């Protein structure tokens, strides 16, 4: 027992020192506690190393010990996993619906096209019937007015268009690699706050659709390895790419050192 108390005391002392050091180094509180936890883990390991031998069990006693051990393991693993910060799937569901929405609509569109084809065939039959009726001397069949023109598409307001571009930035998770407005990026890709000074909207669009078309200075290795995924031409709708490129084109903050793009294709 004295050994356990001694090691626990050492663990607490080491933990206290670690907390002191990490506090002095301005680690957030949660990290201070994490380092304290490591010290206690170390103490537990050393207590276990010098613990007296466990007596051999047999029969029902060993079976009970075994079942209890499994229950402890299950509890520890489930509660351990539940203690980490949990990702909220609701955050993702909206995004997925927006990304897959057009694709799903496309599949519905396929069904709609089939309906249109059937309607056309019926229309042909109606016309054939009208001709036959005329031939039979009816002549009174009134001609239907031409189908109404498709509703005119309203132009997207510039504000909405920019919002759409920003939304694409979030949906495609560009922030994982590129820093913008001081947020996101892990140095995987260039910071983009001044991209509008170097590239036109069409050029940005080209870069999104064909990542090999431009190479940012200082990102030669990344460019050669094709780090920027060559998938957006397949994943994104034309309008979304234009919106994203237009939105990025507005970033002309010359105080940020956005690397110069070099045309490669």
């Amino acid at each position, binding site marked *: 027992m004295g050994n356990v108390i001694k090691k626990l005391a050492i663990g607490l002392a080491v933990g206290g020192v670690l907390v002191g050091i990490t506090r002095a180094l301005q680690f957030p509180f949660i990290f201070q506690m994490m380092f304290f936890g490591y010290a206690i883990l170390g103490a537990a*390991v050393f207590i276990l190393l010098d613990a007296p031998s466990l007596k051999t069990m047999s029969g029902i006693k060993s079976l009970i010990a075994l079942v209890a051990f499994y229950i402890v393991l299950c509890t520890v693993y489930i509660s351990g996993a539940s203690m980490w910060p949990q990702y909220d799937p609701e955050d993702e569901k909206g995004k997925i619906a927006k990304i897959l929405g057009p694709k799903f609509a496309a599949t519905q569109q396929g069904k709609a096209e089939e309906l249109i084809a059937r309607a056309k065939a019926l229309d042909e039959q109606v016309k054939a019937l009208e001709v036959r009726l005329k031939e039979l001397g009816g002549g009174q069949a009134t001609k239907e007015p031409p189908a109404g023109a498709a509703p005119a598409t309203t132009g997207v307001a510039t504000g909405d268009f920019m919002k759409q571009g920003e939304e694409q930035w979030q949906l495609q998770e560009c922030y994982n690699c590129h820093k913008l407005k001081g947020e996101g990026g892990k140095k995987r890709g260039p910071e983009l706050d001044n991209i509008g000074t170097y590239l036109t909207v069409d050029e940005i669009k080209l870069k999104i659709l064909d990542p090999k078309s431009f190479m940012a200075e200082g990102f030669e290795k990344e460019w050669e390895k*094709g780090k920027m995924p060559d998938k957006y031409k397949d994943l994104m709708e034309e309008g979304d790419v234009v919106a994203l490129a237009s939105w990025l084109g507005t970033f002309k903050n010359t105080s940020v050192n956005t690397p110069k793009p070099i045309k490669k294709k």
Partner: protein
Amino acid sequence: MKTWQRGLVAACALLALFGGVAYAQAPGAPSVEFPYTGNRTAVWIVAQLHILFAAFILGAPIFVVISEWMGYRKQEPRYDRLAKEVTKVTVILYSMTALTGGLFIFVLLATYPQFTTWFINQFFLVFAVIYPALFISETILLYLYFYTWDSWKGEKKSRHIALGVLLNLIGLITLVVINGPTSFMNTPVKAEGISPQLYLETATLWDKIFNYSWMPLNLHRIVGNVTFGGFVAGMIAAYMYMGAKKDEERAYYDWMGFVGNLIGVGAMLFLPFMGYLLAYELCDYDASICPYMMADQLSMFFEMQGAMIGLMFLASNYYIWLSMKRIEGVEKVRMTILAPIAMVALPLVMTKVMTDYPVPDPMSLAFLLPLILAPFTLARFVPLVRFIPLVGRFIPQTVSARTVIKIGFLMVVVGDAIWLTPHGFVPTGAKLVAELELPSDWNFLALMPAKNSAAFTLVFVTVVNYVIYNRAIRQGTIVWGKIDFASQFVLIFLAFSSIWTMGLMGAVRSLLRKYYHTYNLLPDFTAESFTPTLSYSAWWITGITVVFFVVVSFAIIVTLRPSDSKGHAPEGSPVPARAK
């Protein structure tokens, strides 16, 4: 279970496969909705169970044949007994693999008929011809191997071992073949400038199989299966040790547990690097996978993985510690002082070197190799090295084995701490705030060089401990059957934890497809195509692991308990360790 019954099970599995294919061809087959779990979790449960059984029946024979061969070479009957006992359990679990495989196909077809039809069409030759042919061949070979055990002995033993090697070869091919479609779902074929859909139309079957993550997945699963086989053999030994009534039985199962653990840990040393290779290839395929894994939705899954691996390394070293305690004369064993120095220096030096020369820059080896090799005397293994003045030769100071192991434990805790330290206590980068983020000067602790150094420290300490153990058994006397009873719980812990971790990483690999059935190719339009929480996943992973354990425990009890009455040659009497 008799041969015809096993054959019936295999036939049912094949019927399920072909019947499933036929069902999938039915136009507009409606999908069902699983109550409570939902469709995705239902597929997850069945698929994971199938993979666990499959991993065992592919991993255990590797272990079995090595053991049988060692018994033949050393003329030691206990190796042969070990091999046979594990094979008995394998035969039962083989039937379970076939059953869960059939169930997997049925559930998949009922829940995702359109996708399954498309997927089977993509790999029709594999699913309809190659895989069933391999499965049937493996079935025949396994039963042949098992039922010829007693008749092919003595002069015919080498023939039996050759049959075992052939069984492993077919098993390996089966694994590699089925990994083709599995890895395709993560990294389907692609070519620069062409849409994946368009490219797929011209791609051959080989193009689809030989995708980006196929070979890394093969390597990862082969090593993982050997680890798995070793740890489950250790668990079988622990069960039998707990149930043993005679000292000689305890001695035998103590030895069996040691061998199973040795194989399991030996293979586990390579697992972090195989996992790294797989992750590297996935990131190389599509850079957006990397942040999804490490910084966003799945980042906390990797924290949990770090915790599990840390615990497993602690447990495997603790087992060595307990094993050392029953060696008489262990106190005389000493090791060069360079061993603890290298252990302590490794995480710091490696983090610095790998930051300056990132993987795969070979320059990093120029700094790290001398440090890693310094404590070892390679002259025993490589004659040429004796002409190279290793630093260890000029430093005569040594420390006791006990001290080295204790410093090793300290460094395992340090390694775990580095591995676990996250960039921020948030589930996604988007929620990062200063109060939950590492200070920028210390951010290197959360980057890959630090994580690699942590993994390598864990591996290095374990290798040093096994070297010490090897020296101890050469210089002392080992008394089998007298190990601390706590070691049996360590063996069970290792088996349970390795299987749990396997389930966790299996979920990660599957979730990496995001909202696609096949990444970037075939979207999953169902409402379940989001990333589940770690907590939710942990519940199911635990449930699946428990079900697997119940079945395996049942198989062990059914197959090995009757052997009590038969009696065995007294293998377990205390022998000088060097006689091993």
